[in-house]
């Protein structure tokens, strides 16, 4: 039997920030793709919850469109029930067809993979290779909806999504598409010097008896810097929980047995950065 060359499957290794390359199994929802010219993309895959929320928004919009159409037809017919029989009803049924089968296709192929609901939740359909979906891709993934929503309420689709490492439903598997989350510009910190001065934390622990130039390895300094930037995005309790993992070692090393974990890490970071 003739065997075809292996398909380019688009299954790039899944990697995690700052960790080793991990093949096959993802610990978080970051998908890493690498092009031949060594440009690497990291996508945040959208999970079933986000996609369900987007679906609800789209469902509402579709309901609104059809509800308004029914209302207009009813107005044109003069009464709500009696004269609903004629051309306007034919157009209404056509509209039902178009909205049921064409809504997602229309918006996904016109606005680069984002139906209004997806846009509201900052989701987008893209091809597995990172390019925008074409009309054909969108047609295929949305026709397959009819299989995904079987037997009712998208049971097949949700099960498929949960089994797949990229949260793809049947339509996505067939059309080779994924749904990704595009975060807003967050975590960049304040943009101007004044803002930075205003928001810069002044931890109470500046009085900690620490050396002016604490001896810390490069990796340790990087970890402190990362924590420093990340802490404002976390709740205080969670930040302290994370800090407590490392704090005991540091307390022992710098001989500050009673230092608060957050203040300790923050002070160490300041003294390594500013030196």
């Amino acid at each position, binding site marked *: 039997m003739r065997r075809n060359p292996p398909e380019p499957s688009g299954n790039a290794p899944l990697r995690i920030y*700052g960790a080793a390359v991990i093949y096959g199994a993802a610990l978080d929802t970051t998908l890493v793709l690498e092009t031949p010219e060594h440009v690497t993309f990291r996508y945040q895959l959208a999970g079933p919850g986000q996609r369900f929320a987007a679906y609800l928004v789209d469902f509402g919009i579709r309901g609104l469109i059809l509800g308004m159409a029914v209302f207009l037809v009813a107005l044109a017919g003069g009464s709500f029930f009696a004269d609903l029989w004629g051309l306007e009803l034919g157009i209404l049924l*056509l509209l039902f067809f178009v909205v049921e089968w064409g809504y997602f296709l229309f918006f996904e192929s016109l606005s680069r993979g984002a139906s209004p609901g997806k846009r509201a939740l900052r989701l987008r359909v893209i091809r597995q290779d990172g390019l925008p979906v074409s009309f054909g891709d969108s047609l295929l993934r949305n026709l397959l909806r009819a299989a995904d929503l079987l037997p009712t309420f998208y049971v097949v689709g949700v099960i498929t999504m949960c089994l797949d490492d990229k949260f793809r439903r049947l339509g996505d598997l067939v059309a080779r598409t994924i749904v990704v989350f595009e975060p807003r510009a967050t*975590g960049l910190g304040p943009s101007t010097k004044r803002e930075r001065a205003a928001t810069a934390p002044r931890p109470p622990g500046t009085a900690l008896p620490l050396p002016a130039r604490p001896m810390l390895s490069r990796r340790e300094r990087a970890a402190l810097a990362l924590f420093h930037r990340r802490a404002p995005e976390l709740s205080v309790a969670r930040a302290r929980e994370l800090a407590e993992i490392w704090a005991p070692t540091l307390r022992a090393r710098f001989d500050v047995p009673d230092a608060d974990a957050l203040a300790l890490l923050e002070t160490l970071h300041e003294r390594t950065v500013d030196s």
Partner: protein
Amino acid sequence: MSFKNVDAFVQARRPIWEALASELVGDRPLAKRPAAVISRVARLYREVCTDRMRAERLGLNPSALHYVDALVSRAHAALYDARPEPLSNWRSFMVREFPRALRKNGALFGIACFLFFVPFALTLSQTLFNPEAAARILPIETLEQMAEAYSQEPSGRTGGESATMAGFYVYNNVGIAFRCFATGILFGLGTAFFLVYNGAITGAITGHVIQTGGGINILTFIAGHAPLELTAIVISGAAGLEMGRALLVTEGRTRLGSLWHQRHGILAQVVGAALMLLAAAFVEGFWSPSSAPARLKWGVGIGLMTLVVLYLGFAGRRKAR
């Protein structure tokens, strides 16, 4: 360029990121924008790619990394976005691609015919010779409604009624065809079910109406649109079965890779079937119930049947020059 720390890095590079982000706002393809914008985006993209690598080395916080990631991938998509499959090629699709794709899938088209017409013939013969049989297949009310509808010769509807029915046929029939196709992803089983189911129902209704005396009426009614409608339903089934076969007979590919390899032909059949059903819906809405003489309707039916066979069997056989 080296940066003392992450904050200095973000502060220095942020304007570049924001400049790129502002160029990528909106859905207008990059190719349709001025050349200066394209080369500006390309330059900014290279800068941000470099920043992405620096960011990881400097230990940028994850949420800021995600922002840069999204920026890089959006810019890449905008720059490399090729729009293949243009919609302008409808003529070539109708004249060549669709009938060719169907002929290539001839064996499964035969099986789809079998799956539809054998149950059709079975329920037809059952209901034809056994008055009680229909009631075991369909609810009595539906049957009475059908028998009533065909108890008289079609005498023409008002234009409004015809439009309503045409709309209904589009909604109902194209929906059936799409479902019949899509469920083929379950290794063809869903498609097989819908073909058998629709064949059985259609046969039962036809048989029952004939049995209760509306025979000539219903056959005259369906003569016009049946060649288009039934053929199209079977074609959508053939496409669904092809999807199932691609999953089973992979020729060394992965199952999904095998399906991906066949997608053009499969999609062509589905779109072709949908267009045929669209045409059928208007025939069924406006022509079939009209008061035109029965002989003319039969003539048109036979004419359409011949056209469908010639079109699907021969269109696009010769290579395009």
